[in-house]
């Protein structure tokens, strides 16, 4: 039972295509697992369709349709070149990764502090996005932290708790810069999350101190 969801604003930004690439992939993982949020996204997409219908028609250049049909004919005439299979380097991270990460490179686990490891995730469509897998040992307390932008964390395995609740696989923790949190991983086992922060270089606070050297490496 998923208890923690992205906010409506985040789902609206996801559905309208205005969410940054890093958070987008983390939210996609949540939506893939959560029927309630998938339905909400479908509502927002339908709203986008309704807005598209309501837009005033903008005049197109003369011959726009004919130009498009010529392009379609030229496309059909030239045999489609099969896409080069992408060479993805994917480290073994010990869990089955969600489908939303199929196009991503996944780096090896690296030690970044006692009981804490991270693996860099590189998105095909935005290699600069700050996305990472985090693996934290059972019972381990993460340093208290704040952050400058929104931080999106989706639990993939294990669980943690902070002042706002208990987070299990499928749950998303969406925290803005107001939130001061100090997550503690449950004693029952290690916890693996995927996390993204908004804003490419706004790395201060927790993420900054812990990950800046690794991101810039």
């Amino acid at each position: 039972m998923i208890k923690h969801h992205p906010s409506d604003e985040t789902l609206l930004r996801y559905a309208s295509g205005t969410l940054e690439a890093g958070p987008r992939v983390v939210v996609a993982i949540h939506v893939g697992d959560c029927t309630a949020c998938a339905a909400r996204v479908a509502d927002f997409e339908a709203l986008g369709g309704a807005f598209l219908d309501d837009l005033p028609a903008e005049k197109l250049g003369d011959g726009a349709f004919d130009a498009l049909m010529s392009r379609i004919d030229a496309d059909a005439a030239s045999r489609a070149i099969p896409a080069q299979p992408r060479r993805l380097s994917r480290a073994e991270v010990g869990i089955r990764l969600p489908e939303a990460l199929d196009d991503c490179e996944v780096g090896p686990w690296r030690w970044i502090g006692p009981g804490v490891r991270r693996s860099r995730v590189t998105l095909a469509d935005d290699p600069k996005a700050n996305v990472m897998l985090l693996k934290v040992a059972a019972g381990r307390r993460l340093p208290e932290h704040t952050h400058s932008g929104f931080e999106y964390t989706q639990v993939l395995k294990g669980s943690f708790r902070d002042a706002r609740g208990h987070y299990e696989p499928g749950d998303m923790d969406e925290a803005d810069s107001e939130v001061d949190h100090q997550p503690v991983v449950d004693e029952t086992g290690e916890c693996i999350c995927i996390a993204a922060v908004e804003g490419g270089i706004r790395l201060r606070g927790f993420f900054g101190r812990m990950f800046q050297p690794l991101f810039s490496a």
Partner: protein
Amino acid sequence: MTMRKQETSLSAEEGARLMAAVAGERNRSAFAKLFDYYAPRLKSFMMRSGMTSPVAEDLAQETMLLVWKKASYFDPLRAGVSTWIFTIARNVRIDRLRREGRPSAADSLDPSDEPEEPASAEASIMAAERDERVRAAIAMLPGEQAEILRMAYFGDKAQSEIARDLGIPLGTVKSRTRLALNRLRAILDDLV
């Protein structure tokens, strides 16, 4: 060169029928009707997202090209034509903004390739109702709230512009967006 007239309306049923003709028989006159209705609106959508007129027209064309290519993926049980075309346009816009940011980005990724699962019987009923429910809900929102939600679809640039037009800070636009969403959620939950 054919002179195209702009279509002012297209019912959901007619749109679905045209899509079926494009998917099944590659029917060009059906596609022309879809083009006449959607391409000018897609250009409008792109311009509101901050694109110049030529870029917006190019992206409208790009979207319609994908409508043609992916017509067989359209499933009227999953979404209305306008909703489906909106999601393609949204992905075309994401792709363009990404390429603007990084000219050498890998282009092998087709952003509109989303996993397609067969619609369940339950999903079919919901998809048919969803459009009407969402349209009814937006009509019940106060005009300013509907407008502020509309702007959210065009990104930060449009939101900054609406802030300037209303003479309020961007933060206020964001908090009004939150209020409008709460209202919309209450209406949608009522309409279930």
